[in-house]
């Protein structure tokens, strides 16, 4: 591999890891900052993929909408108390043109309750469009396709 693609891959991987770490460290307020202003975030049950358009269970199409979601989680919603752990793997650049990368990755999210018991909460695939926004890579679109489309209890923290 030449130097340039390797650099791009390293930067994309760093963005994916940072995404996971912000969520796992409960830094929800910083989560929207990983997206461009009109960025899209969706969680789509795998069983809905064969419909056009596929029905999401969680859908933001602006950074402001993500901020509303975070405010709702902080101030309004009641959900299961837990620690989240996002594991991102199998990161692959599917296409690259100019500064826009289509990226696929696998995610696994574990939840640990307040008695220290861990369960596998969700597994699936990220389908990302990553772009160079103001000198750093950001998500133009992040779609989490849930293999685990029978959501255990509820989904609060983004996948």
């Amino acid at each position, binding site marked *: 591999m030449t130097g340039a693609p390797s650099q791009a891959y390293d930067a994309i991987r760093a963005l994916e890891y940072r995404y996971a770490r912000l969520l796992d460290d409960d830094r929800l307020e910083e989560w929207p900052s990983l997206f461009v202003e009109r960025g899209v975030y969706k969680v789509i*049950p795998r069983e809905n993929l064969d419909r056009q358009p596929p029905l999401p269970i969680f859908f*933001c199409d602006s950074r402001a909408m993500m901020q509303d979601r975070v405010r709702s989680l902080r101030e309004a919603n*009641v959900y299961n108390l837990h620690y989240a752990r996002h594991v991102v793997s199998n990161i692959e650049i599917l296409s690259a043109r100019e500064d826009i990368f289509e990226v696929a990755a696998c995610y696994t999210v574990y939840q640990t309750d307040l008695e220290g018991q861990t369960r596998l909460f969700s597994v699936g695939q990220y389908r990302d469009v990553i772009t160079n926004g103001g000198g750093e890579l950001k998500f133009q679109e992040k779609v989490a396709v849930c293999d685990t489309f029978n959501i255990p209890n509820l989904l609060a923290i983004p996948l």
Partner: protein
Amino acid sequence: MLRENAEISPPLPWPTQDGSRVPFGVFTRHDVFDREQEAIFRGPVWNYVALEAELPQPHDFKTSFVGDTPIIVSRAEDGSLHAFVNRCAHRGATVQRQACGNTRQHRCVYHQWSYNARGDLVGVPYRRGVAGMGGYAADFDPRDHGLTKLRVASHKGVIFATFRSDTAPLEDYLDEPLLAAIDRLFSRPVKVLGHMRQRVRGNWKLYAENTRDPYHAALLHGFHATFGLYRTNQKRKGGSDRARAHSTGVTYGDDWRQAEQSGNIEQDKFVANYSLADPSLLEGRPDFNDGVTVSITSIFPCLVIQQIMNTLATRHIRPKAADDFELYWTYFGYQDDDEQMTACRLKQANLVGPAGLISMEDSEAIELIQRAIVRDGREDSFLEFGGLQADLDKDRTGEATIRAFWRYYSGLMGRPDGTRGNGAEA
């Protein structure tokens, strides 16, 4: 079939006959769960199983459940609807393994027994044997070996099934206010936009209670208050069937209704004066001209039909065990929705379902109950909010509809003293 007066050991200790005390054992006991499968789900009730819009074409099918029994819902070549147990008449294997699809024959993979869209046995390999070996006797009649059939009835495209031959006609079972609620939401042909599922570690009846419980709405669900989504002249009304099994209620009378009267409805929003950073979440056009923003209809035992703003969905409660159920959402719009309306429904899907801004709390509340009632099955919950004399057709703020659910439930399950019936409170 239901065995009359089947024993429950020990009997359910209902402390009162009016549904105001519910012993926790009904949420935890496996013998109660088993009894429910016979007395409730296979009893004289109509179980929601699917929407006709999910199987529009001949030979379309969808797998579903009646209680915890897996079934296939299917449309035959003449357009008629059928439902049968998804269990091979030969050795008991699951016949149809797909969630939905279109097929002329449902073929069991084990020995390739095949059934048509009505559940009739139409194919048996080596039925006459091979070279004098194997095969079935000459008097083997395929008509005796079809899949176990249920009766099916559909109202406005909402499909119900029952195991019993003596279940009252569907329209009588639902009764007037419930029929009106269904007619309203299914007044135009619908199209399914997708499904949402959540698996809840709790008893299915905790969800049945939840959807008949206006008391919790503004207390548990904080989204509206947090974002200033209050309407000044909001009112509630509702109704119930004569048997008091079901409940339907609406919230109506708000700002955009007034706007409609000023002839300005197309440009108007559902709400004003909120503090969302991105208000596009709530931008929509009213689907109806009646000012109703929320409509929740709970049909015994396992169906909820909802309209919340532009979100339309059926919620199918699928019990799996005493402490486990699936909530299966079928999210729909109308066939004549334009692109903008579909986009609006997809965005408002944020409000409901497992990640719903105004719904995610419900399953958590249910799990909180299930976790805490592990041991004290003879202790009970307390359901007297709104008073015991509340008029079900007028008072839509108290716990009267939950008490009515329990009276109907205990009537079907049989009382410890052997009597049946739905109690005294009207």
